[in-house]
């Protein structure tokens, strides 16, 4: 049986959650570990931390976050952001992270995916892909390119070709973030997501654009994503993880039942 995972994503800067998090019952709404533990209690299937720290001591801070999270959270968690080497990955995995997510460093040097997979196994290598639709003349099918630098820079690399390549290199999962949908709250880019799901055999996590619970359902049912990732609809207390699970169950999508 395929069950769809619901994954909240936390942006972390220097050990603190970016942007306010409006959650009932938290002592410290800026503490990523406390927030992750709250999501765990609500029935989150996994947690993703995206580290945007730019400071020099940032690696130590994020490793410390992995260590604390492993003590408080008993579902799998992934850390992405700033991982450029096998050593970076090793430090996070040894500290307790289950997976590491690489993005632009893999675009610059695709062998990084193979190196981490060879050392620790494909199951812990997530490749995060920022994709944006190319302008198409009428009649042409849509194509998407891989972007880096938060969607500002077009690499010229075809997104579907890229995901197939990283699978060959040993990626165990794709987190697919649509640069067109990101921040719109208008829903996932379903056409892109479906195209990537069809292009690879490994799990694909849909990301970018979730504004309503129906968007999560669409990602699972229309795009056939293996997991749905969202940030703001959970952080600001609009919906709990349990709400999301109930919406998916009501729509006929198999999920691990909500716990709260």
């Amino acid at each position, binding site marked *: 049986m395929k069950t769809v995972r619901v994954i909240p994503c936390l942006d972390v800067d220097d050990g603190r959650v970016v942007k306010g998090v409006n959650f009932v019952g938290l002592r410290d709404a800026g503490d990523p570990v406390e927030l992750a533990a709250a999501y765990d209690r609500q029935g989150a299937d996994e947690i993703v931390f995206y580290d945007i720290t730019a400071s020099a001591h940032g690696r130590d801070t994020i490793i410390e976050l992995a260590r604390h999270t492993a003590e408080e959270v008993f579902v799998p968690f992934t850390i992405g952001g700033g991982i450029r080497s096998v050593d970076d990955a090793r430090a996070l995995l040894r500290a307790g*992270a289950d997976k590491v997510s690489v993005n632009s460093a893999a675009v610059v040097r695709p062998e990084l995916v193979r190196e981490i997979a060879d050392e620790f196994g494909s199951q812990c290598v997530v490749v995060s892909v920022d994709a944006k639709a190319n302008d198409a003349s009428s009649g042409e099918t849509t194509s998407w390119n891989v972007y880096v630098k938060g969607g500002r820079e077009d690499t010229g690399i075809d997104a579907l070709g890229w995901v197939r390549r990283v699978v060959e290199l040993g990626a165990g*999962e794709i987190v697919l973030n649509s640069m067109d949908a990101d921040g719109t709250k208008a829903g996932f880019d379903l056409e892109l997501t479906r195209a990537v799901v069809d292009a690879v055999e490994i799990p694909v996590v849909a990301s970018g654009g979730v504004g309503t619970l129906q968007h999560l359902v669409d990602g699972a049912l229309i795009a056939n994503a293996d997991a749905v990732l969202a940030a703001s609809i959970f952080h600001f207390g609009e919906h709990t993880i349990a709400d999301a699970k109930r919406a998916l169950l009501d729509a006929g999508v198999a999920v691990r039942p909500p*716990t709260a």
Partner: protein
Amino acid sequence: MNGDRPLVAVLDYGIGNLRSAQKALERAGADARLTADAGLIAGAAGVVLPGVGHFGTCMHQLRATGLEQPALDAIESGRPFLGICVGMQMLFEASEEAPGVPGMGVMPGIVRLLPDGIVRPQMQWNRLDVQRPDCPLLAGLTDGAWMYFVHSYAPDTDDCFVAATCDYPTPITAVTERGRLWATQFHPEKSGDAGKRLAQNFLAAVRADQCRR
């Protein structure tokens, strides 16, 4: 007498995330140590063999760190032993993931690639279909408990050793039992409250075994 917090050795043979397994056992009441010390393993009341990644890499690392023999000795002694994920797979004779690399061979059978036409790896939560409700590891978990799986291979073994399966979409070996040698294809340390219960069940078996000795 250290029955209060029994010593459980979590074998540290230098692969990825072993810390979560140690933490989960501590939370269940064990004095859990990540260790590569054969003496400590020989004196432990229970032993856990975690494992993630590639079967061949894990077998190689287990042998390179000299921990295969202490693990085999622990199993031979009849003390409670728990293999997790690739730590389960290594108990078998071989794996299609690494042809030519012998496994530990304490469980009969071969670890085989999951069938074509499904998403591989199975990286998701799935329900246990319990085949052996009397399995002590599964006490309180017989009603379709949800566990977290990450794997592309699974053991193909005699039905008499299979305590639970999951459906993906054919029955996949999820828990095996041979005396006090248990193994799970899923990660109890990542399976929330259900996984916590399983860790507690293992600890209960460790305590019961201590009393028998």
